[in-house]
């Protein structure tokens, strides 16, 4: 997450020099990411840690996401890469083309969610409890949850794609032990009708963006400069341990 911020700030610092960047990653250990403004409930954080999960705060909005048995993607671009001033929903629609293509490569048809639960926030603490018009759906159920942050002409969009059904673990973690599994969500495995490994999904995301935007992506090594920048942002994504934990 800190690396996503570091990449965003590279684009802010040098929008002409820093190319658009696509990143896919997983979490070890599994982790709960909280939305930028989401209030930290000490009892919730204790539960996350008791379950063995890390906790971070995203620079993007929305609600808690459990990064378990999923693949996380992030895209960092300068707003100037779009041919004209681009609205928030337009940029989601554009960047989502890569994800739609990626899912198609896995045999999954997806589309921008029409706002399945409206664009109003439900009372739930969990991101996947509702779909906004920036998310992707398959058969009316949310398959990709995404969020953006915009700073000084740069856009970071990142999101989570569940690879298998982990709704019970998600509900236990995010809503409390024994909570009802979150409805309206579908995993890649269920949508594709088969198991899709992390590596296959990662390859599909890369190929999907290349195909959607007719480009060839170049691997970018995590050099010392970038990793050093990443360290500088760690304090911004860290969620402190609650008192008494």
């Amino acid at each position, binding site marked *: 997450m800190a690396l996503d911020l570091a990449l965003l700030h590279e684009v802010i610092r040098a929008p002409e020099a820093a190319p658009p960047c696509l990143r896919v990653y997983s979490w070890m250990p599994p982790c709960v990411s909280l939305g930028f403004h989401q209030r930290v409930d000490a009892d919730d954080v204790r539960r996350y840690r008791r379950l063995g999960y890390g906790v971070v705060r995203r620079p993007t909005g929305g609600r808690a996401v459990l990064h378990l048995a999923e693949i996380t993607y992030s895209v960092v671009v300068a707003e100037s890469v779009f041919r*004209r001033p681009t609205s*928030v929903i337009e940029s989601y629609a554009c960047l989502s083309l890569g994800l739609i293509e990626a899912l198609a490569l896995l045999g999954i048809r997806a589309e921008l969610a029409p706002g399945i639960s409206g664009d109003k926030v439900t009372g739930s603490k969990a991101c996947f409890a509702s779909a906004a*018009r*920036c998310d992707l759906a398959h058969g009316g159920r949310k398959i990709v949850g995404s969020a953006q942050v915009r700073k000084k002409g740069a856009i970071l969009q990142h999101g989570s794609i569940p690879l298998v059904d982990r709704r019970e673990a998600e509900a236990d973690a995010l809503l409390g032990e024994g909570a009802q599994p979150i409805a309206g969500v579908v995993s890649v495995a269920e949508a594709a009708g088969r198991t899709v490994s992390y590596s296959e999904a990662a390859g599909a995301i890369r190929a999907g963006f290349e195909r959607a935007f007719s480009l060839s992506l170049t691997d970018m090594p995590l050099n010392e400069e970038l990793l050093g920048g990443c360290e500088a942002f760690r304090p911004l994504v860290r969620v402190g341990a609650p008192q008494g934990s």
Partner: protein
Amino acid sequence: MYPGDLKYTSTHEWVRVSGDTAEIGITKYASDELGDIVFVDLPEVGAPVQAGAVAGSIESVKAVAELTSPVSGEIVAVNDVLGDTPETVNEDPYGAGWMAKVKMSSPSDLDRLLDAAAYEASLGG
């Protein structure tokens, strides 16, 4: 389309000047683009702000965006209503959805702002 008595920034804030105080908020264009606003993070009363610098943040169901101060000075009031009803920004961006009031330290900051016609033109409208 955009109130003629206000000044605007290229980052979609508006300013209503009253004496040496600037009332600020975000435009309807910005609030429409962000969608339903769910959280507004405002500066503390008494905090200094600089023209063009980040003063707070706004979160909607779609994105987090920065609130940039159009003027330099000191925050003298913030709209506490937005803590409980952030959607007020969407409902009445130029009235009840105001965000903060700044006692200006450099009124010449206003000279760099756009009038309604120039702001609308910048949107391609």
